[in-house]
Structure formats: structure tokens, C-alpha cells
């Protein structure tokens, strides 16, 4: 379950500007308070350790879990008579029929034809032409490379299916999401209602709602698309809504004076002025949709997720990496294409890129070529079906031995690192959090959040903490919280080191960026086995997987923030003869404080998104509970309770982190709620 949000400076400038000098008032005293609370906590813990930890015995389940399970059973039992199930079932059937038709055109043999209506040559030509039409020639080349890679590596059908699923999902995101984005952007009340729902949609583990969705929408692509929608809708609504609400009041007032209706204002002023931001939202929704590829294949959703999972059950790392890398390539293609498409009109207006008559001619001639290719691919078998090659398998074997070699070299160090972190950091922290009586841990958490973020942090801690307590998984939550905190700290350490390095060296930046892009878009299921081989199963394996996913976002934010420090400031400090180390610690980092806070907040949320993956590699706790609920029908109630707990924990940590950041002056921008309007591509401005 990986989000593909990425974090380079976007069209909308979300990198908080380097803020003025830190406010000295709350700085040190806050940390003194936190330390004081922790010391008090440890002292009390020594006395009451092990009491009231609320640990559930192996098979003990609470009433809430039983109630959730019975509710699900009731829905299953009523499925033949339930009107809602009948309606959603019909919708599901409609989606499957439409998708089946599309498959016969592009990816699956249209019986009695031995091949689809349009063979690969025609599809590649069409896609390349579309790339030229919506973006530019460079994008067209990228599109062609991606499509040809599907075919050459033996994943043509799955690659095209993935694009079809993503396309249909994004179309639905636009239809459903735009009206909601308008509501969020124009009405404060609507925003207050919708935002928490969006938060829940983005943090609820898919494994929790996957089975119920199947119950309503049926097995296959229908459920895959509905699950994808749940995850992919929020970015467009949030970011689009933000764009609409950020349209300057003077523009609105000026046009209101002409006596326009609110519909006219929306259509003629707000939407056009918010266009760039809306496209960023759409880009993020597309990335999110793509990141559901693997999960969807648990319910027979078509696409590149299926070969990844099927390789995973054979422990075939190479064979899962090949389709995994194709997903990365697809993500990069879609990201660059949507970005370029949104910039095309603007560039053309400035007299750059393909435009005017030249464009018409190129597209016209290209169109004819496409028609010829389509015709040929409908006539000749070799132009319709890719020849069987062993390239995919060869690449998989190469990747396999490369992984083995890396694991062989790093194996010992991995073990040592795991033990150092586990014994040195995880075990003591876990023992303090999870072996304290619940009332002690809860009070300590409230006090820590008060010290960090004041009243604004206390309220969410109390509210969401109470919810967690009532759901009955307090002990598991404390285990998970320990891992989340340790993982976030490690992410920030890595982000500071690599981020600063990237900001100070153009070459390092160029070298690292593609790796970071890949880290964020490659499905976690592809690197589970290498991570297990390096570190062995357990909490550290889960943390390592979370770092692979979360660190890139944080690294890029830190790098962008540090780079945004004005050159004049650096020169001024250099003239006083500072060393590089002093320059970093006394000028660059303090001035990039806002970005650091943002990086920590984002790192935290990305780590939270990996809790369930952690459950799959031996991290126990909430992640395991979710997987258990997904795997055994009788445990669904437990899984659902664990899923809701993860949502509450996420909301709690996010709100506390934000309140804390606001007090440092490193204000986490309101726009950055949960998903940031950030995209995969490097800055183009």
C-alpha cells in the first residue's frame, strides 16, 4: 500500500519560505519540559511496570470487535435481499462489462480473434501520438519506451490493463471529486465536514475494506476500481479545493462587481485561476491510483500487481522486481505526461514547444501514420502479438543475482544494525510505552503533547486517544507507536544527511533523484524479501521497509528547503569565515526550519502508511492484526478495529506534529494537510 506522492517543489510553492529568526521564547524550554515528563514517566514506570497494560491474551476479543464482525456477517447474510447490495452489484457489473470491452480492444484476445482488436503496433502508435498531442515530443518518446518495455519484457497485457484501470479510476475521480473540490474550496462548513473523511480515507488500511467492497461490487476490476477510488479521491479534493479557495479575493471582488452569479464566478473566475493547482491534484490522484495496483490484485484486479504477487509466493525476487520496475516506469510516464500537459498551453503562449501550424501538421501526419499502424496491427500477427522472448526472465535472473550479491555483502552489517537498533532503541522504548499501565502512558502522552504543541495538541491527543482506548487495542497501539516513532527518527536522520548533501552538490542531486522517485513508486511487495534477507523478520524489517518508502519524500523536502536559502545569506556568512559545518548547522538548517518540520510531518505520515506492510514482515502489533483480519473470516472484527485504530493514531500524530511545528515557527502550511500538492517531477521553473 504505497502512496506515490512525491515531493519536489511543485507548481504551487509549498516549500515554506525560510522564516525569520527562530523565536527564542519556546525553543529550549519545551524540550526541557518533554525531558522532565519522560523522566517522571520512567520513575513511575519502575514502580508500576507491567500492571494494567491492557494486553489482550492470544485469542481474546473485545465486544467492539465482536460487534464489528457481526455487523459484517449481517451484511453477508442479507446480500440477496439488500437493495443497496443489488444496486452496487449492478454498478459493479457495469464496470466489469465496460472494462471487458476495453480489454478486447487493447489487451485481451477478442474471441474468435486470436489477438485484441488493435495489436501492439497500433496501441504503441496511438499512445505515442497521444503523448505528442497532450504534451510534447519528449513525452511521446517516454510513452513509446514505456509501452515497448511492457511488450519486450513479456507484460504487455498486464501493463495495458494497469493503464486501463488507472484511466477509468482517474476518470471517476474527476467526476466525483471535482464537485467535492468545489464544495471544499467555496464553503468553510463543507470543508470542516469533508476533511476528516478524507483523512480517514487516506489512512485506513485497504486490507480492512477490501473484503466488504467485494461484497458490494463483486470480484475483479469493479472492486479494484472502487478501492482505488477510496484512496485516489482525496488528493484531488484537497488540492483542488485549496486551489479554488486560494483564488485572490480581489479577483473575485472585481468580477463580482459585474453582477455575476455564483455559477459564473465559479466557471469564469475560480476554476480557470485555480487550474494549475487542480492539475497538480489530478497528478497526485493519478499517482495514488497507480499505487493501488498490488492491493487490487488480491481481489483479481487486473494489472501489473498480479505478477508481483505471484512471484512473491515463489520467493522469486527478480520476477517481482521486473513488473515492479514497470510500475515505476508507468508512474514516471504518467507523472511527467500530466505535468507536461498542464504546462503545454502556457509554453505555447510563450512561443516555446510545438505550436500553431507546425503542431497541426505533425499531429495530422502522425494521425495518418497511426491509422496505418492500427491497420497493420489488425492484419499481421507479429504486429499484433509480441513475440515470446526470454528478455523478461533474463532481466529477472540478473536482478535476482544482483540482489543476492548485495544481500551477501551487506548481510552481516544488516544483522548488526538490526540488533543495535532493536536492543538499543526499540526494546527500551517499547518497554516504557507498552509495559506502562495504560493510564500512565496516556497521561504521559498528553503531557508530552502539551509540552510540544500546547492546547492545540492536547485536544486531539485526548480525543483520539480515548477512541483508541475504547477500541480495545491499546497495547498493540503502543507497540506500533514505538516503531512509528523510531522509524520517523531514522527517516529524519537520513533526510538531514542526504538532503543537505543534495542541496550542496548538484551532482549528488542528479544521482539521487531517480533513486528517490523509484523508492517512492516501487511497490513495497517487491522489496519485502530483500529486506527480510538482510535483516531477518521482525520490527526492524518493518522499519527498514518504511524507511525505503518514507525517506525519499523527506529527503527531497529537506533538499528543497536548504536550497531555498538565499545565496546572498550564504555569502554574507561565508564572508565572516564560517566553516562548511558551521554554515550547515548555523545558517542553512535553521533557515530551512519550515521545510524540516514539513519533512518530519510527511515522513511520519508515510511511515504510518507502511504499518500493514510491517505486519507482513513480522512487526506484530496493529499491522499484524489488520493482516489477520484480512486473512481469517472470523477475525475480521479484530482487523477492522485495528484499522480504525491506525486511522486514529495517524490523526493524533499528525495533529500533534502540526501543532508542535506551528509553535516552532516552522509552520506546516495549511495546504499540506495530509497529502501535499507535490509531484514527482523535478522543478521546471
Amino acid at each position, binding site marked *: 500500500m504505497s502512496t506515490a506522492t512525491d515531493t519536489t517543489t511543485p507548481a504551487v510553492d509549498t516549500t515554506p519560505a525560510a522564516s525569520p529568526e527562530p523565536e527564542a521564547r519556546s525553543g529550549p524550554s519545551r524540550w526541557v519540559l518533554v525531558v522532565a515528563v519522560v523522566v517522571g514517566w520512567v520513575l513511575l514506570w519502575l514502580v508500576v511496570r507491567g500492571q494494567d497494560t491492557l494486553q489482550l491474551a492470544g485469542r481474546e476479543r473485545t465486544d467492539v470487535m465482536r460487534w464489528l464482525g457481526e455487523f459484517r456477517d449481517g451484511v453477508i447474510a442479507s446480500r440477496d435481499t439488500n437493495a443497496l447490495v443489488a444496486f452496487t452489484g449492478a454498478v459493479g457489473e457495469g464496470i466489469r462489462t465496460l472494462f471487458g470491452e476495453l480489454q478486447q480492444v487493447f489487451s485481451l484476445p477478442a474471441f474468435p480473434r486470436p489477438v485484441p482488436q488493435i495489436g501492439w503496433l497500433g496501441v504503441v502508435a496511438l499512445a505515442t501520438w497521444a503523448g505528442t498531442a497532450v504534451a510534447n515530443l519528449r513525452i511521446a518518446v517516454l510513452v513509446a519506451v514505456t509501452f515497448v518495455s511492457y511488450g519486450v519484457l513479456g507484460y504487455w497485457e498486464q501493463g495495458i490493463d494497469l493503464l486501463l484501470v488507472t484511466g477509468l479510476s482517474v476518470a471517476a475521480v474527476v467526476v466525483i471529486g471535482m464537485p467535492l473540490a468545489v464544495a471544499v474550496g467555496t464553503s468553510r462548513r463543507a470543508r470542516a465536514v469533508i476533511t476528516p473523511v478524507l483523512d480517514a480515507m487516506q489512512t485506513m488500511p485497504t486490507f480492512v475494506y477490501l*473484503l466488504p467492497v467485494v461484497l458490494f461490487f463483486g470480484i475483479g476490476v469493479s472492486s479494484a476500481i472502487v478501492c482505488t477510488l477510496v484512496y485516489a479521491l482525496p488528493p484531488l479534493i484537497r488540492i483542488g479545493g485549496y486551489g479554488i479557495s486560494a483564488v485572490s479575493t480581489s479577483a473575485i471582488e472585481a468580477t463580482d462587481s459585474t453582477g455575476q452569479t455564483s455559477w459564473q464566478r465559479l466557471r469564469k473566475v475560480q476554476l480557470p485561476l485555480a487550474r494549475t493547482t487542480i492539475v497538480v491534484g489530478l497528478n497526485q490522484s493519478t499517482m495514488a491510483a497507480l499505487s493501488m495496483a498490488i492491493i487490487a490484485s488480491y481481489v483479481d484486479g487486473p494489472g501489473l500487481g498480479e505478477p508481483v504477487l505471484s512471484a512473491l509466493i515463489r520467493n522469486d525476487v527478480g520476477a517481482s522486481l521486473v513488473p515492479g520496475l514497470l510500475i515505476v516506469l508507468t508512474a514516471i510516464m504518467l507523472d511527467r505526461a500530466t505535468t507536461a500537459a498542464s504546462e503545454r498551453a502556457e509554453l505555447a503562449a510563450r512561443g516555446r514547444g510545438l505550436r500553431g501550424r507546425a503542431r497541426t501538421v505533425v499531429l495530422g501526419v502522425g494521425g495518418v501514420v497511426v491509422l496505418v499502424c492500427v491497420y497493420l496491427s489488425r492484419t499481421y500477427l507479429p504486429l499484433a502479438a509480441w513475440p515470446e522472448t526470454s528478455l523478461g526472465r533474463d532481466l529477472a535472473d540478473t536482478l535476482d543475482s544482483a540482489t543476492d550479491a548485495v544481500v551477501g555483502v551487506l548481510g552481516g552489517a544488516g544483522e548488526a544494525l538490526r540488533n543495535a537498533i532493536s536492543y538499543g532503541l526499540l526494546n527500551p522504548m517499547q518497554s516504557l510505552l507498552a509495559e506502562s499501565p495504560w493510564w500512565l502512558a496516556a497521561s504521559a502522552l498528553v503531557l508530552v503533547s502539551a509540552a510540544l504543541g500546547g492546547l492545540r495538541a492536547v485536544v486531539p491527543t485526548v480525543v483520539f486517544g480515548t477512541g483508541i482506548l475504547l477500541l480495545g487495542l491499546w497495547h498493540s497501539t503502543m507497540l506500533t507507536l514505538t516503531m512509528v516513532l523510531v522509524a520517523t527518527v531514522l527517516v529524519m536522520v537520513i533526510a538531514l544527511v542526504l538532503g543537505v548533501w543534495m542541496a550542496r552538490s548538484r551532482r549528488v542531486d542528479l544521482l539521487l533523484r531517480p533513486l528517490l522517485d523509484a523508492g517512492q513508486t516501487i511497490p513495497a511487495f517487491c522489496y519485502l524479501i530483500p529486506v527480510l534477507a538482510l535483516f*531477518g523478520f521482525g520490527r526492524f524489517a518493518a522499519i527498514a521497509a518504511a524507511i525505503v518508502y518514507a525517506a525519499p519524500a523527506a529527503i527531497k523536502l529537506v533538499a528543497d528547503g536548504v536550497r531555498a536559502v538565499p545565496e546572498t545569506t550564504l555569502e554574507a556568512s561565508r564572508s565572516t569565515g564560517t566553516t562548511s559545518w558551521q554554515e550547515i548547522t548555523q545558517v542553512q538548517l535553521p533557515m530551512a526550519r519550515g521545510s524540516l518540520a514539513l519533512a518530519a510531518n510527511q515522513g511520519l505520515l508515510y511511515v504510518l502508511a507502511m504499518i500493514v506492510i510491517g505486519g507482513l514482515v513480522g512487526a506484530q502489533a496493529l499491522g499484524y492484526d489488520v493482516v489477520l483480519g484480512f486473512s481469517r473470516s472470523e477475525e475480521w472484527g479484530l482487523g477492522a478495529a485495528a484499522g480504525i485504530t491506525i486511522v486514529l493514531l495517524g490523526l493524533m500524530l499528525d495533529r500533534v506534529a502540526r501543532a508542535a511545528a506551528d509553535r516552532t515557527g516552522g509552520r506546516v502550511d495549511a495546504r499540506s494537510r495530509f497529502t501535499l500538492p507535490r509531484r514527482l517531477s523535478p522543478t521546471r521553473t
Partner: protein
Amino acid sequence: MRTSLKRSGRLAAAAACATLALSACGSSSIDEQTSENKENAAASGDCGELNMAVNPWVGYQADAYVVGTLAKEKFGCTVNYKDLKEDVSWQGFGTGEVDLVIEDWGHPDLEKKFFEGEGDGSAQDLGPTGNEGIIGWYVPPWLAEKYPDILDHENLDKYAQQFKTSESGGKGQFLGADPSYVQFDEAIVSNLDLDFKVVFSGSEAASIEAFEKAEKDKEFLIGYFYEPQWLFAEVPLKKVELPDYEDGCQDDPAEVACDYPVTTLKKVASTSWVEEGGPAVDLVKNFEWTNDDQNEVAKYIAKDKMEPEAAAQKWIEENPDKVEAWLG
């Protein structure tokens, strides 16, 4: 620069199309195959569709693709393989989306919901596959060889400290399995008073990787595992003796102190599909093979990295008598 790039791009594309078009000449055309397909369809029997759930493990794939391939080739059925977890598969019986789960390791809760009698009757038992699931506690072979007495549970405590890891809180670590399996290990550990803590791997992939790593690096590891499983071809795990299973010794989950029973793997099918009848239903009813048979196909898939269809095809060709018996 820009224009020349543009032009050369166009030219290259046109050239590529033309070359491909020329090279395609003389190869078999799509139209011919289309009419061939039509004729074949008319000639083959009327079997209809078989919606085969494919649960996520290799042994299951072996069963599914052997039966599926036969249904397709001998009776002309359209076989739709659907990659699904167990719960979703069972939910699909009632809606007609799934006709067959071909290897079931025991799901009392699902039977209660969907079997005749207790549940809505959308699913029914089609008898054993012939495979026997041997669930239990296993150690990597190097360990059994070096410390033979470890294969008796009574000696486990002697080694508990060597099984200790960062995850096991000072006790020996016992590797719990993929949550898809019903496990009583926490109860067994506590009722046999062993100095171990159950730590769940969380997935089959993690369990397999753990056993492979333990054998390779000669690490201490004990955990829940099962046969038939392709891993045994690579790492022949050794089973640890627990108190024998007796009827009823697992009735109270909290009181379990015995080994797991031998599990008879069975076929479960949608009632409506069975009632419709047809050659595929009889094929599935007749299908029965041994653990060795399944392991062989599983080895083709997992070790030789063959596609499941190809692996099934190969086994079918090599075992004509067994296949003949199922075709009735």
C-alpha cells in the same frame, strides 16, 4: 534543433512502421486464425465456463492449473483463473463469480456461513484432493542434524536461549506462521510450559525467507510450517515431535497441548455449479493425487520458474495414466 528532432522522430516512426509492415508479410494472418478459432469452438464440446479461484500459494496453483488445463483441453471449457484470497473466494460462491476452490486447508468459520445446514448452502464439499497437510513445528535440517535431540519437544527448553532474538523478549523465539492458518502455538507453548515466545512472521513469504536464511546462515529457528510446500525441495525441514494428536485435544483453543492433526485437503465448490453438472464437475470430483504429485508440479513452478500452465502441461504429459483415471 527542435524541428530537426521532430522531423527525424517522425521519419524514424514511419520507417519503423514500414519495416515492420514489410517483415510481417508472408507470416500467418490474423484472419486465418480467427476462422480457425471459430471452427474449433464449434467442434469442441459444450462445457461452458469454469471460474477457478487461485489462492495465493504454489501448491494451490499446481492443483488449479492441472485441473484447469484438463478442463480446457479435454472438454473445451473456458477456464477463468481468479487470483483471490480464501475469504473472497468463498464469498464468490453465492454470486456465481467463483465455482471452485480446489485446495482448502480448513475454514470452519466459512463453512458455517456458506455450507448447507448451518449457512446459506451456496458452497459444498467435493471430497478430498488426496493431499494431506502435515502441519506442525519444524526446524531447518542443519539444526536437526547437529542437535538430533532437538526434534523432541521435551528437549526444546535446553536450547531456548539459543533461539532468542531481539524480538522474543528474553525467551526463545518461536516463528508463528502466515495468519491464514489456524494456529494454536501460543497455547501449546504455554501449556507445555516451554520457555518460548511466539513471534508471528506475518506472511508465508516471511516464513519461507526465515527458514531459508536459517539454513544458509546456520541459525537457530523453530516455527510453524506445513507440507506439502515447495520449500521442502530446497530446504527439507524436519518436524519436531509434539504430544500426539487425539480427537478433541484441540477443541478448546486455550487448552491445546498436542500436535496438529493431519489435515485432509479438500475441494469446495459452488452448489449451483455442481447442480448444473457437466464434464468439468465430474473431472473435479474424480481429481485426486498424492503429495509427491503436487510437489513435482510445485517444483516446476517455484524452482524451475515455469509458468503454472506450462508446469501443469508438462506434468499431464508425463502422467497419462493418472490423468486418464480422472477423465472417467
